[in-house]
């Protein structure tokens, strides 16, 4: 047993982080907010070219033949950068659509957020996922969808009036969303620590005050527990473990964003600071594919069936 990342995995992680830092830095993020969160098609194609969507496809299908652990590392970086767009749905759609794999087509999903659908206006196709099966619909096959004023400025939402069939979520969609939450949790920890080391009050950096220091320490503890859970679930692919990973990653992302906001004081409550974007997205992802209540029931079932 050696849980550490291999050299290849570390190189992949570094590569994606550099790509996103160059292509989706603070200015691009602000531009995305100003655009109302619509997908940057050019960036989408670049992600496609870099293998973001085709990562797990066999080499014969133009993929890299990598596994869930590698996909998790890549989605963690996306979460860290707060990259917007229906990333998980397009990644899944790549299995059956070369355009999705290449990033020339944006695919959302109608069964990820109960009666809401994300990035509907920008999407070329919408998936409907039933268990392990998927069906592709075109947006016009989902009539009467109405725009909703989305709380997350980076995730446009529409309401599907008839609701959508409730189906058990695909494990990989749950885990990749958890990986995004993990990246976000790690990022808000970094942001809080950096701010606490720079901002001075009472003649010293606020990070020297224990009340602030302890908030930051707890953020790291949540992140590292979630990381162990998410990485292990990527290796075992066990659905109970995946559900647990989502539960802990949701908690880490939401609570870390809240603590980060607190550490930033009044600045944290402004539109300018990035913190609110992490919090709003973390709340949204917490409801995607698998909610905390559902994850807890899955865990409880596992306990009961082990009796």
């Amino acid at each position, binding site marked *: *047993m*050696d*849980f*550490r*990342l*291999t050299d290849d*995995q570390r190189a992949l992680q570094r590569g994606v982080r550099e790509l996103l830092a160059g292509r989706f830095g603070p200015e691009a993020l602000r531009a995305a907010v100003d655009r109302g969160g619509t997908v940057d098609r050019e960036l989408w194609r670049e992600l496609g070219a870099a293998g973001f969507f085709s990562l797990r496809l066999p080499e014969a299908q133009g993929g890299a033949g990598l596994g869930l*652990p590698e996909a998790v590392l890549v989605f963690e970086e996306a979460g860290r950068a707060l990259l917007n767009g229906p990333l998980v749905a397009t990644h899944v759609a790549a299995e059956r659509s070369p355009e999705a794999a290449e990033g020339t087509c944006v695919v959302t999903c109608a069964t990820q957020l109960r009666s809401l659908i994300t990035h509907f206006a920008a999407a070329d196709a919408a998936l409907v996922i039933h268990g392990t099966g998927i069906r592709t619909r075109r947006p016009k096959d989902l009539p009467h969808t109405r725009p909703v004023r989305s709380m997350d400025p980076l995730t446009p939402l529409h309401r599907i009036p008839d609701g959508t069939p409730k189906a058990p979520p695909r494990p990989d969609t749950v885990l990749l969303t958890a990986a995004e939450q993990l990246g976000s949790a790690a990022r808000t*920890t970094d942001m809080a*620590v950096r701010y*606490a*080391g720079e901002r001075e009050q009472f003649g*010293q*950096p606020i*990070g*020297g*005050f*224990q009340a*602030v*220091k*302890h908030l*930051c*320490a*707890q953020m*790291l*503890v949540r992140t*590292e*527990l*979630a*990381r*162990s*859970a998410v*990485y*292990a679930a*990527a*290796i*075992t692919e066990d659905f109970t*473990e995946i*559900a*647990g*990973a989502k*539960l*802990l990653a949701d908690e880490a992302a939401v609570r870390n964003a809240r603590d980060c906001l607190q550490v930033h004081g009044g600045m944290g409550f402004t539109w300018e600071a990035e913190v609110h974007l992490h919090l709003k997205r973390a709340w949204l992802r917490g409801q995607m594919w698998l909610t905390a*209540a559902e*994850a*807890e*029931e*899955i*865990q*409880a*079932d*596992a*306990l*009961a069936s*082990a*009796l």
Partner: protein
Amino acid sequence: MDLTYTEEEEAFRARLREWLDLSLPKLSARPDPLDWPGRRAYDTTWQRMLYDAGYADVHWDASPTQRLIFLEETERAGAPYVGANFVGLLHAGPTIAAEGTAEQRERWLPPVLRGDEIWCQGFSEPDAGSDLASLRTKAVRDGDSYVVTGSKIWTSHAEVADWCELLVRTDPDAPRHRGISWLAMRMDAPGVTVRPLRTLAGSAEFAEVFLDEVRVPVANRVGEENDGWRVTMVTLSFERGTAFVGEVVACRRTLGELAAAARANGTWDDRVLRRGLGRLNAEFSALWRLIQWNVSESQKTGGVPGVGGSVFKLRYSHARQELYEAAAQILGPDAFDLDRQWAADRLSSLSYTIAAGTSQIQRNIVAERILGLPKGR
């Protein structure tokens, strides 16, 4: 990233499992928690059985992965953990192995492994708990002895210990961290008085130790004179890094028993309670994964656990308390019956956020040593 065990490791597991199946039935029944001599006898017998079977030094010499397997299997089989041997096996032993001279290793390690000698930890003092470096017990050199005077507190298992890993101040004029030395003291030396303290769980788990001109040979000093703080940091990294691993396996078993109890008494139908157990299940599974992560990381540092131990201890100590709070809700009135193991365990769980460094101190460590935030007060 690989969570599978090698063939060699699986063979180790299979051999161990077979030995446990054969040996555990030979062990007498667990003694009453209040019967200290009985507990000592039970724990040292178990250590002797491990010694004879070649497993005694698993906490020191085995690979970190073998140690994990050992803890997993012994816990699963319901075998005793280190018990009264915990200081010798988990802190003093590894510290002497890392910092002691060849002579010292030869003198002290084999009796720990054989279960012949029990150690206790004399670090904390009435005025030096979290602020350990402010300790005042003084040791004055007289020929080839130190003459030690002062008092220690919260010394676990002091009543049954043969040896004490003792921190003393050998230079009162040096800066706080610089004047400390690490000594091995016999508990039956003239001038040592042990006064048991009753814990809130009712047992005499720890004691006050008064030291009145106790003579300790200079040869019993581990590390250089006045370099004891560095040696102490080695001890503490073992204490936080690996000492709790076996307990996570035990908590997972306890959680399963709790689910069974909830099904039997109908509280399982209470959605809030049921989901709370589900959440704890996710939490303890993740804590196990975090241990595997820390163990893998420690392979880089030759098996000495890093500050990751503080991250683990913080989350684990709180999770353990939540587990017993959930138990109390599910068991209802039975939770007040001290003859039920649940009740005793619930009480003892309260010490986890205090012993081996309080949660507040662990947060300082994480913030300063991992996150690099400024030291403050």
